[in-house]
């Protein structure tokens, strides 16, 4: 079923995990450069989405954590039970969920970023 060896998938898992650490750290720092409540005000959040480097950061977080998170879930589910049907089903479902979350999050980023041109 899988096109990659598990050792290669684990390398991707580790790389996405370490990369996510850095981008999430920047995301959290952006909440702390002003009082926390103020950073969540609509105008301030929209301003973040109009900042192109920050938009790239958000998309990176989305992709990295979706890959890392859903692969982690796949590994847990494969540890619990083993059979060809289960392993194929889990792989297909986690890849579909990962793509769905990335698509939904990307839609938010594109729509909110586009609001600045209205």
């Amino acid at each position, binding site marked *: 079923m899988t096109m990659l060896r598990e050792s290669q998938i684990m390398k991707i898992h580790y790389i996405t995990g370490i990369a996510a650490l850095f981008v999430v750290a920047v995301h959290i720092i952006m909440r702390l450069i002003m009082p926390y409540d103020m950073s969540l005000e609509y105008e301030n959040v929209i301003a973040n989405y109009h900042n192109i480097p920050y938009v790239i950061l958000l998309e990176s977080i989305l992709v990295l954590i979706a890959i890392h*998170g859903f692969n*982690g879930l796949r590994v847990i589910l494969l540890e619990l039970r083993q059979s060809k049907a289960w392993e194929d089903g889990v792989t297909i479902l986690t890849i579909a969920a990962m793509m769905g979350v990335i698509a939904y999050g990307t839609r938010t980023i594109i729509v909110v970023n586009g609001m600045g041109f209205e």
Partner: protein
Amino acid sequence: MEKVADRNNREGLKGWLNPGRYGWERVSYWLQRLTGVGLLAYFVGHIYETSSLTQGPDAWNAMLELTQTPMGHLILMLVIGMSTYHSVNGIRLIFTHGGKGLGKPGRPDYPYDAISLNYRQKSGIWIALILAAVAMLYGASVLFGGE
């Protein structure tokens, strides 16, 4: 003759969660998985939460009223603790899977403690737990302290 299906999943979740068998390493094993699943659930929820931005300020403020509550802040504190533990313990696991910190192979002597489950591994687990607690305290000061 035992069927293949009978050999699979003998203990299921019970075996997965049993902390008695391998001590702290087992606790670390299931904490890594529980925090991972918890963080994935939060991530999906956070994607849904931020999607309210597309519907304008009223929808965003309505979402904040739902999430920026004492209960919401407690959940965020838990997320901070989970992410810190998962990250620090994850880094320990990356080194361990690369063969670092496992010690040298040796003759198994009574009481047959595995050499790989040594003080380095235990220290890593404790450092992850302590840093998670510190991060949660800092998170509490920001979320409840009005900084």
